[in-house]
């Protein structure tokens, strides 16, 4: 009854020959893939900077360009869906690069057999999110593949934006005394999706935070030049952003766990799934590095916007040049933060 396929043991080289899921997790393994395969073949001055958007210079003006693909399962989850995510992800990558979005493209790969009703819902959601961001979908592409070749819908959005204040934002501008600000509670998106996927029977009030941040960010950057770097903590979460910031600025960064905004229901979900909220994805959050003297002004501006009501300072940059990010825990202990490896694997007990 049992079919037995005799397979010879894989040599270590063979074992590592193929792509594994974690290569797409946005962690260290993704970095390794980009560094070993992509950059050696395609690397150039713009790409190699590996920022959220490429910055392109044309006749003295700066444009930002960015692209992102979305393969989330389930397609719909509390607070958002793949369509809303596809708009917010790309808008936010433009916004954290200091760019005003000019237009978005939409690439769709649909699996044969997909209900048209589902597609309509996703497109409605794209329209709604684009409307919130004040941007239009200006070009697109549609492909259909066999029902077993894709999982429902895959989306790719590309965005182009104009940078109002050129050369304002870069990790190398970070200095000791700068403070690190976030616009609200962390980890809601990743945990809402994980709960919907892994424990659909669990009822929770947890919702994805997916939201376009361009208006919020512009409300700050149009009023002050105190913001020196921004990034949206998506995959790899807050940890991924601050660890990279420490590495690229070469300074010592301290995060205070007791200042990190985290809803109790999010903490519960993280405990249940065995995940560290610091490493979980957000889709409506921005981390800003701000000159110390502008801290109050930036917080006041953020607090005036609905998406920044719970903004607060979560850390600061110190003068030691060791490129380390350190967490001061609630109980007063300290530990180093490191970028996660790849996909977050649930613990077993």
């Amino acid at each position, binding site marked *: 009854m049992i079919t037995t396929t005799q397979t010879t043991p894989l040599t270590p080289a063979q074992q590592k020959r193929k792509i594994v899921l974690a290569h797409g997790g946005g962690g260290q393994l993704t970095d390794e893939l980009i560094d070993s395969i992509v950059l050696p073949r395609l690397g150039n001055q713009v790409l190699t900077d590996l920022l959220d958007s490429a910055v392109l210079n044309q006749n003295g003006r700066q444009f930002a360009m960015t692209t992102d693909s979305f393969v989330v399962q389930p397609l719909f989850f509390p607070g958002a869906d793949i369509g809303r995510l596809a708009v917010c992800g790309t808008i936010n990558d433009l916004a954290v690069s200091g760019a005003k979005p000019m237009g978005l493209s939409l690439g769709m790969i649909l699996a044969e057999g997909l209900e048209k009703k589902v597609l309509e819902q996703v497109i409605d959601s794209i329209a709604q999110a684009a409307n919130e961001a004040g941007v239009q979908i200006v070009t697109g592409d549609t492909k259909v593949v066999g029902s077993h070749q894709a999982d429902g819908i895959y989306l790719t959005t590309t965005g182009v934006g104009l940078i109002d204040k050129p050369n304002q934002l870069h990790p190398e501008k970070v200095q000791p005394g700068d403070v690190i600000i976030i616009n609200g509670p962390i980890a809601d998106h990743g945990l809402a999706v994980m709960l919907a996927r892994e*424990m659909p029977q669990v009822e929770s009030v947890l919702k994805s935070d997916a939201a376009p941040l361009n208006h919020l960010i512009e409300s700050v950057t149009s009023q002050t030049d105190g913001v020196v770097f921004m990034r949206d903590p998506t995959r790899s979460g807050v940890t991924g952003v601050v660890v990279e910031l420490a590495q690229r600025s070469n300074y010592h960064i301290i995060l205070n766990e007791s200042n990190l905004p985290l809803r109790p229901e999010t903490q519960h979900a993280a405990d249940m799934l065995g995940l560290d909220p610091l490493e979980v994805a957000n889709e409506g959050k921005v981390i800003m590095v701000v000159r110390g003297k502008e801290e109050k002004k930036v917080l006041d501006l953020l607090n005036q916007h609905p998406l920044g009501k719970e903004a607060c300072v979560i850390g600061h940059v*110190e003068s030691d040049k060791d490129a380390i990010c350190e*967490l001061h825990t609630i109980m007063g202990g300290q530990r180093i933060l490191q970028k996660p490896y790849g996909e977050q694997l649930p613990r077993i007990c």
Partner: protein
Amino acid sequence: MKTRTINIQEALDRLQTAAKQLERPVTFMEVCGTHTMSAFRCGLHSLMPENVTLLSGPGCPVCVTSQGDIDLLIEVTVKNNVTLCTYGDMMRVPGQLGSLEQARSHGADVQVIYSAMDAMQLAQQHPEKEVVFAAIGFETTTPPTAVAVTEAKKLGLKNFTVLVSHKLVIPAMTALLEGVDVNVDGFLCPGHVSVIIGSEVYRPIVDKYKKRCVISGFEDVHMTAALARITEQARDNQILLENLYPQAVTPKGNQVALDLIFKIFEPADMSWRGLTQLPKSGLKLRKEYEDFDAELRFGLVSRETPEPAGCRCGDVITGRCQPDECKLFSKVCTPVHPIGPCMVSSEGTCQAWFKYHQPQSRLRKKVAL
């Protein structure tokens, strides 16, 4: 938040006070992966008095699984064309045929699940698939496996089996104490496991082996309080069994869960990483349930296979060495390219060290609470 901080501060003060009054340095061991991770996550090690050491023992289910059992798991996946359901932590543990993650990239059907019932239901919904559940873990993960097997028998499923590697905590602690080269002054006993097995089962460790046992919950404040209490015992030359998690742990444990476990399983000799074969330290399916035994279904034979060359995971989980005393640690063995299981599991001591523990010199001076 404020009340919690004050409680932690009180516990820390008690720990510091008791430590100052100790006549000699003391070493305690926790035997629970969740404790390992919780301690590192909250920065407990950075707040420990110099003369109090907390070691991680054989508490991470992935780490204590013998290399032979890991190879068996990967072998059944690769060679027998089954759908393997596993808890996530097992995905990246290297075996002779590669890891499950790599097997999946070569086309094997490997699914990460959160509960044994998920695996059973997959078998129920897909009669065309041969589903094997990798059942690992201590007394906490055993009852769900028992429920899944009971249900599968009720439903008469012919395509669901379990590769059992469930282990029991007390025999491991006893084996450690029977060893000549492991010296600890007491144990922080695992809260979750004790919910099932109760507090009284630790009595022989206190009475016969003269080791302190303090049962602790998992939050920073629980662990600090337990550490303070066990240090106070050492200061006062007391050797006691104390339950600091009484809201969840009773003297006799959860009888319903225990009955369920032993209805389906019976004690069996089991191989452990770092401890070799220990008598009656694991579980196997009882004869009435052997139709669900993957080893019998697929004619699998567990072999003693050597641990990866140079890997000291076995010494790490028995408190014989700290992770940075292993020559592979952080050089060739990292979370991205792990050699041993302790670097793979999020509860593994090596990964916790790699991720969270750095020499104090690399950290800034402590901040006042």
